[in-house]
């Protein structure tokens, strides 16, 4: 139990930005992340996510690919173009069977892809993996 508490405390210093236009995804993802102790900020479209990334400087971005105004990929490209947000790693959520070009992912800081419907457990594991890689 104390182990779990200390892990949660350690996670508490990490802030994660979640962007998806489907509110149920936002709820499921932020619940899972909050329960693991992370700070979570949410955005309902790419533009809002871009503004929040600049204001909040999150440690990680989880974004849907299909979003109004700014797609997940365009969001990552815009973040990459600005030095202050260029190093935010991203996890991209996509429809099943949808694939991005490898050059699109590597150039834009997209470290992992998960297809919907994803397992929240698996998403959490992926988040921990990415943050650990960053810390190393």
């Amino acid at each position, binding site marked *: 139990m104390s182990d779990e508490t200390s892990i949660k405390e350690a996670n508490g210093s990490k802030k994660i930005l979640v962007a998806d236009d489907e509110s149920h995804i936002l*709820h*499921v993802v*932020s*619940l*899972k992340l909050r329960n693991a102790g992370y700070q979570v900020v949410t955005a309902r479209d790419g533009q809002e996510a871009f503004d929040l990334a600049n204001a909040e400087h999150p440690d990680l971005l989880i974004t849907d690919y299909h979003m109004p105004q700014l797609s997940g990929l365009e969001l990552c490209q815009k973040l990459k173009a600005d030095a202050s947000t260029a190093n935010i790693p991203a996890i991209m959520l996509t429809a099943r069977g949808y694939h991005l070009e490898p050059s699109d992912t590597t150039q834009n800081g997209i470290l992992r892809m998960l297809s919907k*419907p*994803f*397992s*929240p*457990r698996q998403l959490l594991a992926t988040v921990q993996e990415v943050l650990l890689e960053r810390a190393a």
Partner: protein
Amino acid sequence: MSHSILTASPLSTTQTLCAPSGVLEAVATRLRSGGVMLATLNTEARVVFHDAAAGTFFQRYVVPMLQWADPTSGQSTLAERVGRLDASNGVCVWDFIPGVLVAAAGLKHRKQSTGTLLLACKSSSFGKTEDVMRVCGRLALDATWLKHQADPLPSYAEDALQRQLGLVNGMVQDQVRMGGLESELESLSGQLANTYEELTLIYQISSGMRINRRAADFFKQACLDVLEVMGVEGMGVALHAENFHRQEPVIYGPLGLPPGVIHRLSEQLMTELTQRKSVLLVNDLPHDKNYSWLGEFAKTLIAVPLQRQDQVLGCLFGLNKNGGEFDSADSKLLNSIANESAIYIENAMLFDDVHGLMMGLLHSLTSAVDAKDAYTCGHSERVALLSRHLAQEAGLSDHQVERVYMAGLLHDVGKIGVPEEVLRKTGRLTPEEFEQMKKHPEVGARILRDIKQIADIIPGVLHHHERFDGKGYPSALSGQDIPIMGRIICLADSFDAMTSNRTYRKALPLEVALTEIRRCSGTQFDPALTEAFLRIGVDRFRDLLTVHQEQSKRLIDLQQLIRGA
């Protein structure tokens, strides 16, 4: 008496929280700036919250009186008022103590009374009344000091305080409703997250149903996935032995069970589920009449049959649900997984059936050819085995290795078209006879070409007499132009021919044959494959041929039958 007032502890009584404390703090702060103190009472009219920062006047003069309870009955002084409030379902304002006005309103959640909202302020009569002095005496307060504390506070008339209470009540009720909605949302999100897990799990299981996957691997993965999603300590599978490769029952997860226990459990479950054909839930194993023997190993059990068309093929079972009992959600999930798994089992059984039938037919065809010539008895089977070993040694994929085996088995099928007197001739063949003999690869390819499922092995049959230097037949291909199957079978075929008895000579010792193979590397044989073949080594060849000899008894019997007839 005054001591009992001050030490009264309202929070120790039954608490019904009527609003989240965060909401109350926020409202209290706003009221405080207007000289009004917020408090809430539980359903027994005890103070459960009051604005502790409202100021000394409230803290010393009002709060102790709100908290006061009759020392003999233990009843709150507010109980009577609040009781009447409930009945009238409204708001009331009264002179609580001299110089203090109190307004109260009932808090409700889903038509249930959850407590009382209370505002207190200085009344316009403060300072005019002698009674303030009397209460000060009871509370051991200095009246002049109290008046000094009260001076900066605004005083309110009854209707003004009532209006404030109306606003505050609305705000608090809204907040409470929102709090309720938020926790509902939270619980819905939690349920949705579980549904996502289950959906992903079922997706994973169905996409893991590749037919060529071993049953043990398929079920291991399925069990490990269910283990995590359902939150159990042990997840196992048992299959009817006669249906399925004599698969032993297994259990995965942190709950270790002795093999004897797993066997006993799986036998009991199979018997029971074969009859009931539906999910079995036991949430108190130690006291169950059928499963109490399992009680020392686990507390709870869930099991579902794996069935196709009313036939129970096996079962899935879970033990020890983390932190509780198995419920209908678990049985629904496990049922879906059992349905998916049953499809896999049925497909795998069908696959085995068809595969078995095809291999049986191929072996029959081969036996028919080999039976024509006593001296080549078992030749096709041996070439198939040798080819399989060579393919493995050369690093071909598992699938390719099996196809090479089949090609090896069928390589001489075309000899069915060669006259027996040519096949059995002891002396040297005439050029005409040799031409007849040379046709067998093409005849074989022709015989097999209509079976589209084995189209990929025909090159092995057609080209097993090509030579690496291009001097072979039927196409005089050379080097890498010769299909890999052809090059492999060519080696295996020559080796077996040298190491078997022939009409014109005795079998050569293995070592001599291997030397001959090495000598022909680069001319007759692919040098890389020759290296791989020589790596197999004499001992393994000997083992291989011994094993085969036992297997080929039936073929010898067949030949004896033919010769006798």
